[in-house]
Structures are given as C-alpha cells and as structure tokens.
C-alpha cells in the first residue's frame, strides 16, 4: 500500500488499527489532497474491521467544522486571534487569577483525546501553576476505572484478542457489541468455532449482544450489579476458605446480604447462573468482559468492580471497555504525576466548586467537560467561571462559553503513545498535518508552560486523607433504591437508559459532527416498548415530551421490540438527552453517581408543537 501510515482509531479505547493514505482519497471525484482510509487486515485487535465510528476516522480530519484558528473572547464575542496573542492572553489570565485568588482557584482537566506524553505535560503544567486540581475528565471512564481500583481486585487482564479467540467460557456484561463492535469478531470466533462453549450475556433486554447469549441472563433493568454479587457470593460459597486475601475481603462485604433478597432483586434463573459459573470456573480459558458504560446500569462502578472480582474468583481473564480513546493512559498519567493532591478536587468536584465560586478558572485539554458532566453543574459553572480555556478539534459545548479556544490536532495529525483497553501501548503517527493553524495539544502545552513563570515544582504530597469510603459500602444501595422509588421523588415511572446506537459513543464531542451518525439519526430519539407506545397512543415518528427531575426535552419516538415496558432508551450523545440524566456528585466517592433516572413520557397534542 503506497504511502499508507498505520494509525490508531481515534474513537474508543480498543486500539483498532487502520491505514491512512494521505492525498489519495476520493477515487470517484478525483480530488487531490483528501486522505483515504484503508482497512488493516493484519491489525492484531480488529483484523481489518472498523465499526461505524471507526469508518469515520478520516472525516474527523477533513471535517468542515474543524477549528482552524485560535479564538479569543473580546467584548463578549469569540474572534480569531494569532497563536501568540491567544497564548499570551491565556498565560496572563492564569497569572492574574493565580495572584488574585491563589493557585488553587485554577482547575486543569485532561481529556481522553490526549496522548500519554501530552497528559504528562498537562500534569507538568498543573505543577507549574501550583494547583492541586488536575484530573481526568470523561466521567463514564473515570467511574469504571475508579470502581475497579476500589474493588482491589487483580484479575488477569486480557492482553490480546488471540486469547479471546481461544476462550471456551465467557461472560459479557451489558451490550458490548454495540459499544465496541470490533471485539465481536474474536468473541464470535470463540463462540462458534469451539464446541460446548458458553457465552453468558448479562443484560436487561434483548440487545444486539444478548441475541448471541448462551445462557442469556436477563436481569431486571439496572440490576447487573446484583446478579454479579449473586454470582460472586455463589462462587465464594462453593470454594470456601479464607486463605486468599481478596476472598476474605469480598466475603466480608457479601456477609450479611440475604441471598433470597439478592435473588429476588436480580430476577434471573438460578440454573443459568450455576451453569455459567461452573463453566467460568472449570474451563481453562475463560473471560469476563464489561461492556456497559454511561448509566446503562445502576452504579456502573460497582458492576465493573464486581465483574473484576468475579474474574479473579473464577480464574478468568478480564477486560473492561472504556469509551475514550486514551482514557487508560490519561488516567494513569494523572495518578503517576501524583494527582489529585491533598486538597485537590476531582473533575466533577471542580465543576461544582466552579458553580459555587470556589474555582474561578478551568483550563481543559482534549475534552468537553460542559457536555460530558451533568447539565446542572455545567450551567452553574459556565455562569460563574471567570476564565474558561479549552483546546479542541471541533466546536463543543465548552468552546461555546469559553474565553480562549485553541484548535488542536486529532489522532493521525500528531505523534505520541497511548494505552488501549487491553493495556497495550499504541503509537500515533502524523499521517497528515492538522488543518489551518491547529496544533497538537502537546505543542500548545509546551508553549503555554514556557509563557508561565517558572514556579518551583511543589514536592509531591502523599495521597492520604481522601475520605474514600470502602468499595462495597454501596451494595445496600439497591435496597435503598427500592425505597427511593416508593417515596416517589422522581417525576416519572420509566427508567431512562442510554442507548448505544451504532456509530455513536462518548460524549458526542466528535460523533455529533460526523455524517454517518447524522444520516443514521438526524435528531434525538426515544425508544419505547410497543405496549408503552400503544398506551400513549403514539406511533413511530411522532414526538413526545420527556420530563425528568432535571430537564425536559421533546424527542422523536421509535418503537422497539423486546424492551421492558418500564424502560425507555435514548442516545446519550445528544446534549438534550444528557441533560435529562439525573447524575449526581457522590460526595463520599468524590465522583459522579451515574445512576439512571426516571422520566415521564407524555404525548404532545396535535398542532401544539
């Protein structure tokens, strides 16, 4: 393949590879200079395949919405500026706020679009400014990584897809094939090419993954954690003994939980559970994959942590999907740099502090905090913040209110390294230059750092006194949740769960702009069960008003078979839908509680819309 550069898909954390051929695209129109995408049959993760998003990788580079010049807000309006002017202004603003309010009035966010080197450089910038507030931003991935860390499980990770190919027993939690379609190939290879294999799928509806489940564990909506707790409890019962440290720990947690209550809450067949558990334990090659993100389930951190513990207890390999392209690398870089420091805030806390006026500046690199964090927090923060600076490839919710917008390069336009979901290092190549004046985040960070005065680096404070509570203190939340439902604090009766439409994922920073998602779903929809639609007397294509505790939205109806009657689905990459979620900041965990909320759905009378 001539002039082809092997690069990594910029969307999720699988680390799929693809080829970029600069200047050879558009075979039909014959335009010069447009890059072409090619598939990489030797790619060790995806073996040539690319999902709906991955196919869009090049559109990201050539998109007409790409930010091409730095923007500065002058007299309330964003105006093009030179790099020198933009960086000088930003540096002097940071200096001013640091002198006026102290360095801890400045928060720095690092998004999943940074390379490992850029994340480390962002940490250096935080050191230089002297702020303790520096954190990884994407909430769904933070919560999953935090949950696995808190579980203190050390399952053996899946390190390559070849391992998956050879597995004979697997458990998939959630709708993995829609979140990360490229992993379907090795899982289906294993499922079909070996006799007597088991692919357990745990999910609340007959999703695209569930169609392949054998056995299919259909839990009550949002109760994946309970089923996993039940599986874990059974596994521990059968094994017995307390010699292994994790076992004692997990048992401590599960003790006192009434098995019958768990069974009742979970709502799955006991025989299926036993079969699956047996297979996971006895088969030599088995794996547990977590494929739910956002708020697909109650407490996704618990689900990830329990799944990790289950993998360890059954001797299975473990893989947890993350939605950001380099979430693992950036998260790791933040921790390795010693953040959050004593007194430092986590990313949702930063937004809350901004809303109360404790934080006066937020500088964000490679993320869109105002659309990925809850709308209520974002609105308050956007109103109060004195300085919002953001780097980004596309216009975003944050850049709309930002004072300084710096155009950055996307993958394929910069070099660096990444960590995939497998924990595998990947290399980014610069296949073509970024458009206009856009620059890689690393170069922006270096320039900004040089402009700030050389403050002596603060010695790394030990990470103590963070007020973390134990991981499993939350397990009784499910009982509390029941009570909450009875109290009826929620406005509606239907559980709003996010739907991963193929080719949509993440906070929508990129995918909202791309042509295929727009072609597939030009406006936000809400999926109702057939009975629910009949009850409301609405048909596919009608519009309904959806109300949650937080917000209200008008969405188009899609009727979905197989959906439980008390659940509605909506695509979370639309800001309208994201604002409906009832995400809260959990003050004890210092992270977002991505619990799905309840909504009410009403038909809109004819002619009023």
């Amino acid at each position: 393949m001539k002039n082809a550069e092997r690069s990594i898909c910029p969307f999720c954390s699988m680390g799929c590879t693809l080829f970029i051929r600069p200047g050879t695209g558009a075979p039909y129109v014959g335009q010069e200079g447009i890059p072409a995408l090619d598939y990489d049959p030797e790619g060790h993760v995806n073996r040539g395949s690319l999902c709906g998003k991955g196919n869009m990788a090049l559109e990201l580079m050539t998109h007409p919405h790409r930010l091409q010049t730095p923007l500065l807000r002058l007299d309330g309006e964003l105006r093009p500026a030179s790099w020198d002017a933009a960086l000088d202004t930003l540096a002097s603003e940071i200096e001013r706020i640091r002198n006026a309010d102290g360095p801890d009035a400045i928060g720095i966010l690092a998004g999943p679009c940074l390379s490992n080197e850029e994340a480390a450089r962002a940490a250096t910038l935080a050191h230089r400014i002297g702020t303790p507030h520096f954190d990884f931003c994407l909430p769904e991935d933070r919560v999953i990584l935090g949950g696995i860390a808190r579980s203190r499980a050390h399952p053996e990770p899946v390190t390559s897809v070849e391992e998956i190919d050879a597995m004979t027993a697997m458990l998939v939690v959630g709708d993995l094939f829609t979140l990360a379609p490229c992993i379907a190939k090795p899982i289906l290879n294993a499922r079909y090419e070996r006799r007597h294999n088991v692919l357990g799928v745990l999910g609340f509806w007959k999703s695209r993954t569930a169609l392949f489940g054998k056995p299919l564990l259909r839990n009550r909506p949002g109760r994946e954690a309970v089923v996993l707790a039940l599986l874990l409890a059974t596994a521990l019962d059968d094994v017995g003994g307390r010699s292994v440290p994790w076992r004692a720990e997990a048992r401590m947690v599960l003790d006192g939980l009434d098995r019958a209550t768990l069974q009742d809450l979970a709502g799955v067949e006991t025989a299926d559970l036993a079969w699956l558990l047996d297979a996971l334990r006895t088969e030599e090659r088995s794996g547990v994959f977590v494929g739910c993100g956002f708020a697909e389930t109650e407490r996704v951190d618990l689900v990830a942590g329990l799944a990790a513990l289950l993998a360890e207890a059954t001797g299975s390999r473990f893989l947890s999907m993350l939605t950001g392209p380099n979430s693992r690398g950036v998260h790791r870089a933040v921790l390795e740099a010693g953040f959050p420091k004593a007194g430092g805030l986590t990313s949702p806390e930063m937004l809350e502090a901004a809303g109360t006026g404790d934080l006066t500046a937020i500088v964000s690199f490679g993320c869109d905090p105002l659309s990925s964090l809850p709308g209520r927090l974002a609105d308050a923060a956007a109103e109060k913040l004195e300085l919002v600076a953001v780097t980004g490839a596309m216009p975003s919710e944050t850049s709309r209110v930002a004072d300084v917008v710096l155009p950055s390069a996307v993958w394929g336009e910069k070099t660096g390294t990444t960590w995939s979901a497998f924990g595998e290092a990947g290399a980014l190549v610069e296949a073509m230059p970024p458009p206009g004046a856009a620059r890689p985040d690393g170069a922006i960070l270096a320039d900004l750092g040089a402009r700030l005065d050389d403050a002596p680096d603060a010695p790394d404070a030990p990470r103590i006194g963070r007020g973390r509570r134990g991981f499993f203190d939350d397990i009784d939340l499910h009982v509390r949740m029941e009570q909450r439902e009875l109290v009826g604090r929620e406005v509606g009766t239907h559980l709003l769960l996010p739907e991963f439409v193929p080719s949509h994922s993440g906070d929508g920073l990129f995918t909202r702009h791309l042509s295929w998602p727009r072609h597939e779903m030009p406006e936000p929809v809400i999926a109702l069960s057939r009975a629910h639609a009949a009850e409301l007397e609405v048909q596919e294509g009608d519009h309904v008003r959806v109300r949650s505790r937080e917000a209200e939205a008008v969405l188009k109806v899609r009727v979905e078979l197989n959906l439980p009657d008390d659940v509605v689905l909506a695509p979370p990459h639309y800001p309208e839908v994201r604002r409906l979620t009832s995400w809260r900041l959990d003050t004890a965990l210092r992270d977002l509680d991505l619990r799905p909320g309840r909504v009410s759905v009403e038909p809109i009378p004819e002619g009023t819309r």
Partner: protein
Amino acid sequence: MTSPNVVTKRIVLDLDRCTGCRACGAACHVGHHDQTNLVPGKVADVALLPVHCRHCAQPACAAACPTGALYTDEYGFVRRSELLCIGCRSCALACPFGVIPDEFVRHVAPKCDLCVDRVVEGGIPRCVAACTAGALSFVDLEETVGTPEYVGGRIQSRSTLRRA
C-alpha cells in the same frame, strides 16, 4: 461470461454472525461520498441485517431503467452511471431483492458497485473489510455451488450449536 475480466466473487452474509452493528453501512457511506448504497434489512424487528446487491446475470433494474443508466460492466457488475441516472426510481421498484434504497442522494439512485475500485486491484469491498463480526465474506460463487450452507447470498445456520 465471455469477458476474461469477469469477477465471479460476490458478497455473502453469515446470518449467525451478524450483530447488526451497521459498520458495513458506514463503510459504504464513507467510501461512496456520503451516499449509502447498502440497504439495511429489518427482520421481524429483531435483527437488522445488510441486504447486498446480487449483481444479477439478468438484472431487472437495468431492464426497468428508461435511460440506460444501469448496465453490466466488463467485470460482470451491475453499475449505475451517475450522469445518465435521472432519479426516476424505476430500478428501486423493479429490484426483486429491494436492494436499491429509496433515499436518493444528489438525485441519483444508490447502487452497489461492489467497490470496483478496490476489487479490480485484488481487494475486497469496503463493507466486507469493515465487518466487525466476520459475518460478511467475499467468496467465489463457483465455490458455493452445491454447498447447502449458501442459499441466496446468505450462509444459513451451519449447525444446531449456533444461536442456541
């Protein structure tokens, strides 16, 4: 089949493996300048499968085309000329498999060309390359003759073990 250039390979879908991820549609969309030539077929609200053009030996679409925009090319592929197509939708009505979608972009009928630009160089169509589940394959029709699995461009369930 007189031309030496004729390609006898066609796209085959393995019904057991398709997850309905629509990556094939996205690949088609990107590879053909935002015109999606690949139709998703809905099977009883349960599954969403791609429906591929068969590139028939005696194409009904070409027979129905009033302007001669649809023709069989030297490789044996049924192609559509962008210049001649007037967007009258006759082909969409005539196709017995329903593979010409009713969503016309730029007033031109969307028509699968089997990614001829890739296939003549020995490659495989974009949808097959992109398939995330290994469900699509590009196989020689002559190999499938007499093989009970291959029925009408599909691989039917090969064993009772599948999709239990």
